[in-house]
């Protein structure tokens, strides 16, 4: 009996026969996440339906030194949930209970497999919603959002997952269940909750999540403005920010992205636009109306040749449809594409967009730009045809050059998709060895054996072995009963 066979037998006994998959055809279903060009078939898939079962699986992994990878809905775009060939894939989608909704506390408690949009749906009747809204919110899970610190179009004003999670129960890589944070803010002690959110499954598995509920705004106003060029749209964005307005969202699409969206969903954006901006304002009615007038004027002053204002929810949905479909839509105009995710300071937008255009031309590939203009989070879509020899390589080159631009301008190699397997190699371009080593001190505290999602985030794992001078066991003062009472 191999190690995995023994583990499978143990897990079948502990969590049930139907919750353990080892058949190769069944395993193949889980070979990739949303970044489908990385594929690894896991040795075993576990489908726990309770927190106890998650802990049992992790404990079994810890005791046998087996790597494990947690996976939610599998929508991630950095290969963060890519399985380990010799490891266990723990799928959390069976843990989908909404434990409680407490509008009077502005909190909800949910299990990790609950879908993002579902939290908003259950809070809505009380006048609240869950603010983080990744484009995949109809299918992505809260547990996955916690792992990736997911953002969304509206994080310009409302922040990311990390700003909306106040408590977690996690199973640490040694199989212990630990609570971090809680329903109240400012839990004393190290903010391990803050370290855990966005750690991409390398510190354990979230099994229960306490989220903030946000009051639904009184008014939402959405504007679509068409410009001749991305320069004009970028200037309008800067003018809006400079005026002291913080919109809920400012999104930009360039001509190629618009073309793709039109061909896919017929969103009816103004013809001949070199760029469109979607600006959404929300809040108290009087505030929104005053700011909306200002935003409209700033768009026109910066060259908008047409502006449209959504009169109702249906028109708002139409405006957003083009934007939200953009990634999938480029499939209509190109057989293959790479979605990049990088961040630049907002003020560098015009310079970086020009340079992206030049690099694309130099290498003979097209780049469609769709991005969160308000916070400088670019999502260039590098289009190529894999059947043409050399194109894939050139597309990779352009995609990497875009990340270079982000780093050169003091930005980040990922704004919301995460590092995962895809960008681990780029981490040393943004962080020194000492910076990465320091992050891995936290990893060593949670997971000294490195079994939680190994190979992700960090290009070189840190050995967590003994260091000279490291104290073993309790501190003498603590052992003497002195430290605890301080």
């Amino acid at each position, binding site marked *: 009996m191999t190690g995995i066979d023994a583990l499978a037998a143990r897990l079948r006994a502990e969590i049930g026969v139907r919750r353990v998959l080892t058949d190769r055809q069944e395993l193949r279903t889980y070979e990739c996440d949303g970044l489908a060009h990385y594929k690894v078939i896991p040795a075993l898939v576990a489908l726990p339906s309770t927190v106890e079962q998650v802990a049992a699986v992790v404990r079994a992994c810890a005791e046998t030194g087996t790597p494990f990878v947690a996976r939610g809905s599998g929508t991630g775009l950095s290969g963060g949930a890519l399985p380990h060939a010799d490891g266990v894939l723990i799928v959390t989608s069976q843990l989908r209970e909404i434990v409680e909704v407490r509008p*009077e*506390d502005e909190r909800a408690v949910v299990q990790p497999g609950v879908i993002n949009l579902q939290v908003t749906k259950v809070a809505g009747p009380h*006048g609240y919603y869950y603010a983080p809204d990744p484009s995949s919110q109809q299918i992505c899970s809260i547990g996955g959002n916690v792992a990736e*610190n997911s*953002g969304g179009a509206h*994080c310009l004003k409302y*922040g990311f997952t*990390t*700003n909306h999670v106040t408590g977690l129960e996690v199973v*640490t890589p040694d199989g212990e269940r630990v*609570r*971090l944070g809680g*329903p*109240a*803010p*400012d*839990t*004393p*002690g*190290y*903010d*391990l909750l803050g*370290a855990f959110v966005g750690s991409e499954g390398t510190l354990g598995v979230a099994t229960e999540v306490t989220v903030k509920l946000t009051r639904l705004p*009184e008014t939402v106003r959405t504007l679509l403005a068409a410009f001749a060029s991305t320069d004009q749209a970028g200037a309008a964005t800067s003018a809006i920010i*400079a005026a*002291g*307005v913080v919109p809920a969202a400012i999104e930009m699409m360039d001509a190629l992205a618009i073309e793709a969206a039109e061909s896919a969903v017929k969103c009816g954006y103004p013809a001949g636009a070199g760029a469109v901006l979607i600006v959404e304002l929300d*809040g*108290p*009615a009087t*505030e929104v109306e*005053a700011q909306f007038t200002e935003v409209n004027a700033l768009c026109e002053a910066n060259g908008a040749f047409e502006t449209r204002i959504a009169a109702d929810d249906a028109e708002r949905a139409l405006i957003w449809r083009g934007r939200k479909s953009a990634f999938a839509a480029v499939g209509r105009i190109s057989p293959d594409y790479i979605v990049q995710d990088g*961040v630049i*300071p*907002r*003020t560098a937008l015009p310079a970086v967009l020009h340079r992206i255009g030049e690099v694309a031309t130099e290498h003979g590939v097209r780049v469609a730009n769709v991005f*969160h203009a308000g*916070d*400088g989070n670019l999502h260039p879509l590098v289009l190529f045809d894999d059947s043409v020899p050399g194109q894939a390589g050139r597309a990779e080159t352009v995609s990497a050059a875009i990340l270079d631009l982000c780093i050169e301008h*003091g*930005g*980040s190699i990922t*704004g*919301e998709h995460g*590092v995962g397997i895809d960008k681990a190699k780029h981490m040393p371009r943004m*962080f020194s060895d*000492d910076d*990465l080593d320091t992050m891995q*001190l936290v990893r060593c*505290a*949670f997971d000294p054996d490195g079994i939680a999602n190994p190979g992700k*985030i960090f290009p070189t794992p840190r050995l967590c072995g003994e260091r000279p*001078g490291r*104290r073993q066991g309790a501190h003498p*003062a*603590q052992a003497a009963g*002195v*430290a*605890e*009472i301080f």
Partner: protein
Amino acid sequence: MAALDELTTPAGDGDTVCGVRARLVAAPADTAEAAALIRAAQGLSVVIRGGGTKLDWGPPPRELDLIIDTRRLSGVVEHAAGDLITVVKAGTPMSELHGLPGQQLALDAPAGATAGGTVAANASGPRRLRYGTARDLLIGITVVRPDGTVTKAGGKVVKNVAGYDLGKLYTGAFGTLGLITECVFRLHPAPAAAAFVRAVAPPGQAAKILAGQFAASALEVNAAPGAEPELAVLVEGTPAGVRERAAAIAALLDGEVSEQAPDWWDVSPWPDGGVGIKLTGRLSQVPALVATAVGAGATVRGSAGAGVLYAGFPAPNPSPGPATTGIGPSSPGPASSSATSTSASDSSPTAGSTGTGTSSPAAVSTGAGRSSPVSSSASTVSPVVGPGTGTAEGTVEAGRAIELLRAAAVRAGGHAVVLTAPAGVRETLDMWGPVPGLALMRRVKDQFDPDHRFAPGRFVGGI
């Protein structure tokens, strides 16, 4: 490597931390000098000092060789207005960052507080309701680790998920993981207009503001024994919007609109030498928390909108006597009458919605020295009064009051942390109280500071 004596000076009389005097003081001028200092100071126990406004928060250090003063690490390195960010050295006064041209770091801090100290203590004020706290506003950080390694996390852009978010780990770590030398903050535009609404109203009325469409920037409560409780609301935005919302709030609370904040706004409710406690809980439990604290004789202020309160007791009497200025209710009369006007939960024998294990109103209003009702009411928390302190009545009272408040905070889903207490009382208290995840926290500390030299004993669980 520079020698320690070139980088430090002998400590003076004022160089103490909670009564523990240091041997040496150093004030590095930049990150490189700080790293050289810390490398030279291997083996020494270290406490970091910024403006000193919160240096008395937490237990005294177990040992103290060296104070690292950050005030020479001062200045705004960069203010990228178009990107709404600023890069500042850790010793920069927060007051400089509150009034950047057209923009602000929207994080309240007392006069003299530094950026690094505010982050290290995770301190916040009324506007946290709208803008969040240091953990929400900090987007990048430079830290010198206890072994002298200079390390960065985060960056200069607001949206960034590359690597672990160590800024959050250092925020509120009270200098136990290293020395913060530089911070990058997200900024907000200065609002075009702002107004306060003040009302005499019980804290339960805060729920109406939260449920309304007022987008308040702050929602503060002020309550004290024998006084009518107050609420104050800050609204910010466009002039027309502020006028309209302030008027609506004033109508709802039967209050008045004011240009000025009330004089208690963002002022700690404890005097020098008093006892200061931070109380957190679920929003719906704020009224019960306020009632319990006022019933125990505390002045209570804080964010009814965020569920973060501060309770202050005057300095205990040095000797037993009339308990009019000491911890605990001055007499059952005013305490119980104020509790009645503060919250229905305290006037009801069932203690309303405060859940299981509630302290009865009788116990809350029991005066100092009558130990049995109080201790039986707080039986979920073990006594914290240590041996040898029973002779100082004020000390015993402090222990009991904290037990009571801690039990109330736990019922409310939060925590009670004693921020500061006078010498003699401090030593007898479990200032941090029980903390979930402590074993993991110890492992983090062991990784960053294996010899436990940075702020030893000052943090949770004796870390």
